[in-house]
């Protein structure tokens, strides 16, 4: 188990049970476990949704949609069963926070799922873990089994007549695309993980045709804490229109990489230089990818910005999934851009053409470029391709590939131009054989 990091600036709400052995249900109960869900049963769905709205919690998967509002969209009456779906498909490069919750505090995910279920009138929840997180399945399955044994799950939970809730855990088998909510439902139903056409939105027609709320694991795990401390108190921890805290995974060239829980709106520069201890080995910082690899890059002089959805948007990038990747002066931006697009090209589900072809041509063009065979038109070609992918795909994967590419060129154009001056790399080509290997 990786060591947990800590910093005095952290505000531990979601992470307050990390390292305390709370995967054990008795320990979880000692630490206020399953109190919030009982409050929710007592006070009712309207109270829960209202507290969630007041809390200002916004989706921690990356889109930042207000959670309370999302829950309120689910129709009260439905002929088909309603579902809560927990998205544990954490796959965006740079993102390393959700697995820590599953590992250290799986009951908070279970309790959050139950709270969401009560709020929307669902009697069943699914917890979906990505295939690479199979090693966490036994932790989560044990937690679910323990909750059943205590009578917290199943029929007449907590001894309340007519209050039922069931949870099923499922894993995928490796696919970034499945992190997209409609593709996630396809995967749960045992199909190829390609996105569905919207509308209808999942809140109306979702899993197995029933109204479905899909939330990121961290979002769900925040719900019990919000009810315990009250929506208003939670909102106050964060910044304007960005309630609470979130887990930030700081990786790359920093002295103390790790997952830190910081208040929304916390300064990015401080997060890197103080919380994560600054650039490794005292080298110079070159760039930061602030919220997972799909977020446009920031330069060293652009870091004085608050880590919330709105401030990051104003800075021309995104808060995304909270994965901050720090690049020092030794990193080639052209190669980093190629590595980034290589991921999206490989993980494009192939369902729609602008993404499938766009990511492929971006990779081809960037590879040629990186290998020293680029010509003057290539920079414009890359931009043209990326711009034509934006907003023209079924799901956000196309945007996720195009946005960082455009960002790299916009911010580091001179580095791309250097590659045109007869640049020859001494490193080996990134070959298609590597990609074939992945499809093995």
């Amino acid at each position, binding site marked *: 188990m990786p060591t947990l990091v800590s910093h005095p600036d952290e505000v531990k709400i979601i992470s307050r049970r990390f390292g305390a052995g709370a995967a054990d249900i008795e320990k979880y109960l000692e630490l206020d476990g399953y109190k919030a869900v009982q409050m929710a049963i007592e006070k009712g769905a309207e109270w829960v949704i209202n507290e969630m709205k007041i809390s200002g919690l916004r989706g921690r998967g990356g889109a930042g949609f207000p959670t309370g509002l999302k829950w309120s969209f689910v129709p009260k009456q439905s002929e088909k069963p309603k579902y809560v779906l927990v998205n544990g498909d954490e796959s965006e490069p740079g993102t390393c926070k959700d697995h820590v919750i599953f590992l250290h505090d799986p009951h908070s995910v279970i309790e959050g799922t139950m709270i969401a279920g009560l709020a929307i009138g669902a009697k069943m929840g699914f917890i979906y873990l990505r295939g690479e997180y199979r090693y966490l399945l036994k932790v989560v399955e044990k937690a679910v089994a323990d909750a059943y044994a205590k009578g917290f799950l199943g029929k007449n939970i907590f001894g309340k007549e007519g209050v039922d809730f069931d949870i099923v855990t499922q894993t995928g088998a*490796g696919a970034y695309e499945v992190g997209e909510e409609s593709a996630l439902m396809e995967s749960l139903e045992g199909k190829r*993980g390609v996105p569905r056409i919207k509308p209808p939105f999942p809140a109306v027609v979702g899993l197995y045709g029933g109204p479905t709320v899909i939330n990121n694991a961290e979002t769900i795990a925040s719900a019990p804490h919000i009810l315990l401390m009250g929506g208003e108190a939670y909102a106050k921890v964060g910044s304007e229109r960005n309630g609470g805290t979130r887990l930030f995974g700081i990786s790359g060239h920093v002295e103390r990489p790790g997952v830190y829980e910081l208040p929304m709106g916390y300064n990015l520069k401080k997060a890197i230089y103080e919380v994560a201890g600054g650039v490794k080995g005292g080298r110079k910082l070159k760039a930061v990818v602030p919220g997972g690899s799909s977020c446009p890059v920031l330069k060293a002089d652009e870091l004085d910005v608050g880590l919330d959805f709105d401030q990051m948007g104003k800075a021309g990038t995104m808060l995304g999934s909270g994965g901050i990747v720090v*690049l020092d002066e030794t990193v080639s931006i052209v190669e*980093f851009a190629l590595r980034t697009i290589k991921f999206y090209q490989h993980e494009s589900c192939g369902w729609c053409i602008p993404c499938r072809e766009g990511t492929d041509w971006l990779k081809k063009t960037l590879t040629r470029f990186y290998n020293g065979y680029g010509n003057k038109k290539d920079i414009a070609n890359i931009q043209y391709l990326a711009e034509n992918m934006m907003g023209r795909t079924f799901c956000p994967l196309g945007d996720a590939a195009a946005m960082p590419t455009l960002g790299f060129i916009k911010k580091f154009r001179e580095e791309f131009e250097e590659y045109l001056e007869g640049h020859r790399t001494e490193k080996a080509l990134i070959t298609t054989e590597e990609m074939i290997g*992945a499809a*093995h």
Partner: protein
Amino acid sequence: MLTAEERREIEIKLADYPNKQAMSIESMLIVQRHRGWVSDESLGDLSELLGLSVADLDGVATFYNLIRRRPVGRHVAMVCDSVSCWIMGGERIRDRLCSRLDTTLGETTADGRFTLLPIVCLGACDHAPAMMIDGKLYEDLDEQRLDEVVARYK
């Protein structure tokens, strides 16, 4: 033919799943845990058991990175090649692994001990570089630790 054990594991899981189609991924993962990969024959067996077409099952198998349609060695090592691992020296780890085992990514060693594969992000970015062997995650790798880890798998 599916073994009695494979069939039993699939049937236990089926009880939790809303329908047989939902079991497509899990059933292939069960077969793979026993045999290392999913053969054409296994697809046919699962097709019968779950009432799904072979084409549907193969479509699912080829969509997901972790379902393997070719035989593998006794152990499967997957090296993360996404950005955080790359900037933290993932290529060094990959090259060391390949040279130590005298094979390349996508291949199996001559003695059938290891199959090496690249994998997209393992979600261990703060402990890069990372790799996974037989589903177990190894983080904060350097050459020495890599050697120690690999030696554990015979």
